[in-house]
């Protein structure tokens, strides 16, 4: 299932599952990720699953590339039934105050605002990975005619809660950060909460997400 295992520096193992980005390959990555995480191997201190790679970093004082590689090659993968994934509804307000890039998208995609939202909302997206900034989910896949490049000049500050798209993916900015994705709306939901140490992320790799539109009034009253 893993095409190639190599070392990334002296303290990480780089598992390459191929170059394509699709749900089948990513599900394999997630299966490895969840199994290794559950096994809680001494010395392994971090796992980073992404679209088609899994990076396993370890404490060089406790283990080595050779040992971790050997463990990966002989791993008993968890049955997929045991991997619990959630289905989540994310409320999103696409009022003009929030949908900062809708005009740009109308031009690039040659679709009206209504069409863009119709194609984006109420569909299931798969969470490939979380990261870059804490808790940010990378969701896919968007319709082929919904795919736009990043902004040429990224924004210095993207507001917290922004729901944005680029290429075949959607994401949510879990806190204010620089960013270059096309912003469609904003969610009042707390997607990352560092005070919940055991479960800071609302959305995790393998979960399914559906965006449901809410009005500006519903948005304003959401956290009351």
């Amino acid at each position: 299932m893993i095409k190639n295992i190599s070392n990334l520096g002296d303290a990480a193992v780089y598992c390459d599952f191929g170059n394509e980005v699709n749900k089948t390959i990513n599900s394999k990555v997630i299966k490895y990720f969840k199994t290794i995480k559950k096994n809680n191997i001494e010395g392994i201190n971090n796992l980073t699953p992404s679209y088609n790679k899994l990076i396993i970093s370890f404490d060089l004082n406790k283990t080595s590339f050779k040992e971790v590689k050997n463990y990966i090659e002989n791993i008993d993968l968890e049955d997929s039934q045991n991997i619990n994934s959630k289905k989540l509804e994310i409320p999103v307000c696409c009022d003009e105050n929030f949908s900062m890039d809708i005009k740009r998208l109308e031009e690039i995609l040659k679709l009206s605002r209504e069409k863009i939202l119709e194609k984006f909302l109420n569909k299931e997206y798969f969470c490939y990975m979380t990261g870059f900034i804490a808790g940010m989910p990378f969701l896919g896949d968007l319709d082929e005619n919904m795919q736009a490049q990043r902004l040429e000049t990224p924004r210095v500050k993207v507001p917290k809660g922004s729901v944005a798209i680029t290429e075949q993916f959607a994401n949510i900015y879990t806190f204010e950060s620089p960013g270059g994705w096309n912003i469609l709306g904003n969610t009042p939901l707390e997607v990352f909460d560092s005070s919940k140490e055991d479960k800071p992320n609302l959305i995790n790799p393998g979960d399914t997400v559906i965006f449901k539109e809410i009005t500006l009034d519903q948005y304003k009253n959401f956290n009351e």
Partner: protein
Amino acid sequence: MSNNHINIIRSGINTTFQDKGRDHLYHIGIPFSGAMDNRNFLIANKLVNNNLDSAVIEFAYQGPHIKYSGEKINIAITGDVIFSIKKKDAEIEGNCYKSYQIENGDEINIISTNKSVYGYLALGGEFDLKLQWNSCSINTKANIGSNDGKKLETGQKINLIKINANRDIKKTNYINSKIENIRVIKGTNFEYFSEEGKKIFYHKEFTVSKLSDRMGMRLEGPKIDNIVNTNIKSEGLIKGVIQVPPDGNPIIMLSDHGTIGGYPKIGVVASVDYDRLVQMSPGSKIKFKEINLSEAETLFKLYEMETQNLLSQI
């Protein structure tokens, strides 16, 4: 509740609490953090009889000016740092790698690091800090860690919940060695670069840019030409990874790095050289030298033995 505390008279440029960092969180987007220069962090704690993973104050360039109130306590500063201690009757020039006993009303003025970036101030005791994921380490970009994930500010007061009973004065003769080359292991996208680009990477000099912080170190110099693709599908990062974005200027991921990135990885800094890498200040010249995995592993073991040896002699 004890009344032992410090007051920050001047915060310095980038003053944070740090410890060993936090792990098992990359998959949700939270980096390791922790003290940038691990060896100097450990020595600082050892000099004041702390547990080796106790919280210390890390500063960069200009450090904080602190006033202490309370019972007698030991302090120590590590790195290459210029500082003074102001007592009731005298002001003394401080030496790194040596503990000092201070008392109510004494002040520590950390003027600056000398041709390096990070320094560490340890107090012989325990700060009253709220931990996140079992670590105080402050990540100012994500606002994670003690002090609401923010830098220490002028005017702040921080309490101590414990003062070590053992107040023996300790010292060590450690000197921060400079190294000529930063040793690297070939990265997973090494073949993306032109023959000329690979030669430049291993043989030319780069300059550490001013745009460097706890997240990353940007380098300037000859451009490294990519002949395959200037982007890859986003994937995980670890500290020490050297990415080359389309402009051809390498960026080295440091302790607060983003956990995912989409630029090709030309190399990874060997763990043995990480502590010394982070101490290279803007304007410093950097040259990379290729080593293989088994050399890197051996060098790290030796470095680690040397660290343990240093600590055991304190």
